[in-house]
């Protein structure tokens, strides 16, 4: 019975579910997807993926995670591990579709305007990220959302480390302006499954 199977796994910790998944228990892995699917899809959307595209990449990321579950040593959280896989897969897809090169070229030529926050409106992170250029958005989300180091992000993006650092720095400056408390923005995130 699927319901009872799911409830059996619902009480288990992520690490226990990873252990069961490593023995080929697909329902245990399904519980992990149920717990962290939204977070992984959220990171991809924040990186700039369209919802359908984000879902496709997130599915591939979870399938890859299942194949490589034995490599997960539990040093970080399972969600963080899958987010890294998803971020890399998304970048690979951008490279395959030749979108990444265009993005990086665009970033040098065309810097988007940084609009000021509206004091009367509640702006969430998604809205704030829209003020960033595509590469800045990628870099900031990879480092702060997917948990990649600057070096890892540089390798994944195939960009020099210094370039990634400056994209992150510029992105943070824009976000700070946009999310500044004096703009009336509540910095606490919405409730979710993190």
């Amino acid at each position, binding site marked *: 019975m699927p319901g009872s199977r799911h409830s059996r796994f619902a009480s288990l910790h992520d690490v226990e579910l990873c252990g069961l998944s490593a023995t*080929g228990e*697909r*329902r245990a*892995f*399904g519980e992990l*997807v*149920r717990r962290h*699917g*939204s*977070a992984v*899809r*959220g*990171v991809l959307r*924040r990186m700039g993926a369209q919802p359908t595209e984000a*879902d496709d990449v*997130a*599915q591939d990321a*979870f*399938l890859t995670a*299942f194949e490589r579950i034995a490599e997960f040593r539990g040093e970080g959280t399972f969600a963080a591990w899958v987010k890294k896989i998803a971020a890399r897969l998304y970048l690979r897809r951008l490279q395959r579709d030749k979108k990444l090169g265009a993005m990086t070229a665009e970033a040098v030529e065309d810097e988007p305007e940084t609009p000021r926050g509206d004091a009367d409106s509640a702006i969430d*992170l998604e809205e704030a990220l829209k003020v960033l250029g595509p590469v800045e958005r990628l870099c900031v*989300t990879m480092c*702060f*959302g997917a948990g990649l180091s600057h070096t890892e992000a540089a390798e994944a993006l195939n960009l020099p480390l210094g370039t990634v650092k400056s994209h992150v720095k510029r992105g*943070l400056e824009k*976000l*700070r302006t946009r*999310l500044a408390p004096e703009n009336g923005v509540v*910095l*606490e*995130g*919405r*409730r*979710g*499954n*993190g």
Partner: protein
Amino acid sequence: MVELDFERRLERLFASSPELADAAAFAERVERRLDAGWTARRWLIGAAGVVGGVIGASQLMLSNVFQRVETAGDSARLLSTSFNHISTGTDWVAAMSSGGAVVWVAAGMAVIMMGFVLTRVIGEI
């Protein structure tokens, strides 16, 4: 210090991802793809087993295996007769000595062992 504080707040914001409305449906899609992959793998292993079995059986046929079994049966019979001469107490050898029973039992055990090994290999994959 202010920068570090902002970065921590940003990390918290990124960590607090909203639960999407179709989270359960998404998980089911992933599970379906996992199941489909597993089914395909089992079919592949099964097909490889059938092909291997057919090749093995044809090789056995070509190598006159039945003639060899008969010869082995004769040898086993001879061996058990010798055992009977040495010790009259070993009734089990005598019980097994009718025709090529020893050879067939050994072959059966080998098949069971192969089945066990194959099951373990499939399980490991």
